[in-house]
């Protein structure tokens, strides 16, 4: 089974209708992962959007070349009106009041294969609205390519999350593995146990709050709305998890990790990198460049 089919099988196993691909950093291989999923979904009506910008020819930040998203006929996209290809013409399904960084969002169906740039709604509510709208317009499965801090829209739902990591995101294999492990642990924060006492937070959990809870020996569950409300990363997050019983109202469902062993400036040994990621996260890990499940 190739990487895309394997990912899809895992994601859809429990009835998910949406799959989000989030990265541990820039150029983590999100677009290549999305492409692998699209390949596996060939023949089905797929809805596709992004949190932020994806599929552009060159990185807006550093002008480096980026993998393109060449979409097949029938695919539904939610993207900024301003970046929809003028030619070949797409079928315009709906306009909307949702705003992206480049103006209003619209929904279109691909009629002729072409490279598309995705520039989706930047807010969690906008993402949720655009996923729902694409489903209403006929998408059987929706894919979301985007930033980890915006996947709050998927919290509490049955959508699956695939985490992408790669050589471009860290200086060493160890660092990359540690980053993805911490992110996965954070995103897989357990749901609150309603039978146990809890302190519920309206907003984000910060380092200052962690210190205050720890100082008073808090033993109750500390509950955030969803895992993205934890404003801690790396060691600070590990420390908070050790000292406090962190829980969330609306958990996320992380199903797999993908690795991209090629970065602009460095390369990781692919098999070893994938094995290390799988061991650290406890999740099935796929090498989307090699095109197979790696560990």
């Amino acid at each position, binding site marked *: 089974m190739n990487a895309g089919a394997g990912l899809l099988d895992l994601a859809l196993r429990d009835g998910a209708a949406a799959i989000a691909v989030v990265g541990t950093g820039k150029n983590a291989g999100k677009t290549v992962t999305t492409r692998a999923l699209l390949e596996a979904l060939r023949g089905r009506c797929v809805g596709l959007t992004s949190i932020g910008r994806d599929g552009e020819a060159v990185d807006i930040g550093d002008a480096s070349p980026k993998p393109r998203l060449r979409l097949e006929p029938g695919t539904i996209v939610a993207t900024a009106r301003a970046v*929809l290809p003028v030619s070949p*013409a797409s079928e315009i399904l709906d306009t909307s009041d949702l705003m992206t960084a480049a103006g209003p969002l*619209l929904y279109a169906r691909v009629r002729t294969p072409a490279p598309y740039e995705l520039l989706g709604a930047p807010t969690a509510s906008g993402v949720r609205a655009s996923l729902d709208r694409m489903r209403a317009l006929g998408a059987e499965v929706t894919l979301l390519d985007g930033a980890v801090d915006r996947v709050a829209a998927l919290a509490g739902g049955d959508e699956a999350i695939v985490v992408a990591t790669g050589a471009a995101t860290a200086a060493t294999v160890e660092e990359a593995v540690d980053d993805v492990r911490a992110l996965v642990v954070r995103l897989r924060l357990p749901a609150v146990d309603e039978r146990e006492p809890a302190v519920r937070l309206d907003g984000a959990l910060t380092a200052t709050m962690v210190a205050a809870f720890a100082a008073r020996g808090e033993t109750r569950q500390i509950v955030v709305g969803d895992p993205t409300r934890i404003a801690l990363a790396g060691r600070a997050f590990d420390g908070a998890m050790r000292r406090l019983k962190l829980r969330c109202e609306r958990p996320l469902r992380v199903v797999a990790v993908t690795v991209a062993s090629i970065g602009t400036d460095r390369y990781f040994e*692919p098999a070893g990198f994938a094995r290390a990621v799988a061991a650290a996260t406890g999740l099935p890990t796929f090498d989307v*460049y*090699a095109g197979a499940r790696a560990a």
Partner: protein
Amino acid sequence: MNLDLLLDETTAGALDAAWLLRATAPCGEYGRRAAELGGAPDARAIAADAATFDAATLDALQDALRRAPDVAPALARAGVGDALDDAAFLELLRFCDAWLRARATLARHDRELGTEAAAAACISLVSLLAHGRAGTYGFYLDERFDPVLGAARARAQRAQAEFDAARGRSTQGVARALGRDEIGEHEFILMRGDAPSPLPEGLRVIREAPTYLLCECELDERALAALARRDDADAALAQVEREVREALSARVRERAAGLDDAAAAFGALDAHVAKVRFAQTYACVAAEEAAAGISFEEARYLPLLDQLAREGRAYAPISLDLPGVAILTGPNMGGKSIALRTCGFLALCVALGLPVPAKRARIERFERISWLGIAPESESGGLLSSFAREVVRLRAILERPHERTIVLVDEFARTTTPQEGRALLIALVDRLRERDATALIATHLAGIAQASGATHYAIRGLRGVPARPAGGDLPAALAALADAMDYTLSEVTADSPPQADALALARLLGLDDTLVTAAYAALG
């Protein structure tokens, strides 16, 4: 009507003008724009339509208004010769669909929408863009718009297929050499251990790592030629699509004046329907225009009615005839402030060209509505005392030029000595009369009406003192109070003593019984 000229912030807050604006707000972009531009609504037409249109008709009209996208940007772009994009064609199509649907709904009631030119523009645009309808709602630049488009698409499709085939042939050798079924158009990893030596011809290494190579397939000359032909075909298709859009945009431009008329008519309809909905929901009537003053039967102050309805409580409408300046007395919680607000709210409706929430009404079209006394603003701090703030406010009211004014005074001068407060109120009645103002002055001070010769209204007050609820249950006490209170306003003779229900009220609301008994004793 400019609301700022009609009332200031304090008065707007006291009357809850924001509630009225929300309740009469259009549902779509066109109506909001029309509302910003102003225009004088016709209360009689609104009330007549509220009686004529059923709720289903209003629902249908508002549904059409909500669904109509804003086509002003598209018309502006077409007007300056820009080629519109496909999303703009979809918006125009949907606008015309919604407009024609609303027009058909109105036609069932023998009513028209917009001008003939507007209708003609919408009908012909729907016909023009009909080939683009895709699915239930969509738009696609279909080949039926121009046969050249179909030919260009077919060429591009053929060129793509030829390129795919040529690339397949080109990469076949590499795929065979690497033991793979096929190689796609993207880069791929080749582990050094699996790499044949030498590397097959046509394989290009993009990056090298110690254990693997990142590769892609180079295209041979035939594939490169096919690629060039595909790019040419794509460019030709883009050119044809641009020309078709330009042609359609030019046709839109020809209809722009009619479509502008249609948009304006939609704005007027949206603003009108919102007011009709308001009038129908709250059983409003068109007030007759009075030369001076305000009089009404069974009027309701709607923000309170709405609040009580949410709490499942009933509302007691009031009636009043106020030809000039009158004094209003009554017990605490008897509805004096609401009586003032009802006057102001009805005056505001009339000034805005709206029907009023009453059974019948005759109301002067006031140019200014002013509130003086207890209001949210007077509760805030600052350097001035409550009394000083009221005086400053009164000065501002009296410094305004003589206008057709209604002044609503809620316990002005309640925070100074009763003697001086009384004197001020008597003088204020005189001054308001000199200015031919309409005014209702609520007060607990006795003898003002008699001393000034003003009409005196009183709220009837408690019909017997209700029993004090067990356990000091405040909501139960308030419910009992509402049941026992007669909110009717009746004109009283000057020598009628003001009804004093304050002590009974204090007992009902749970104040210490000994204290209340002592107060009764002190009252004698």
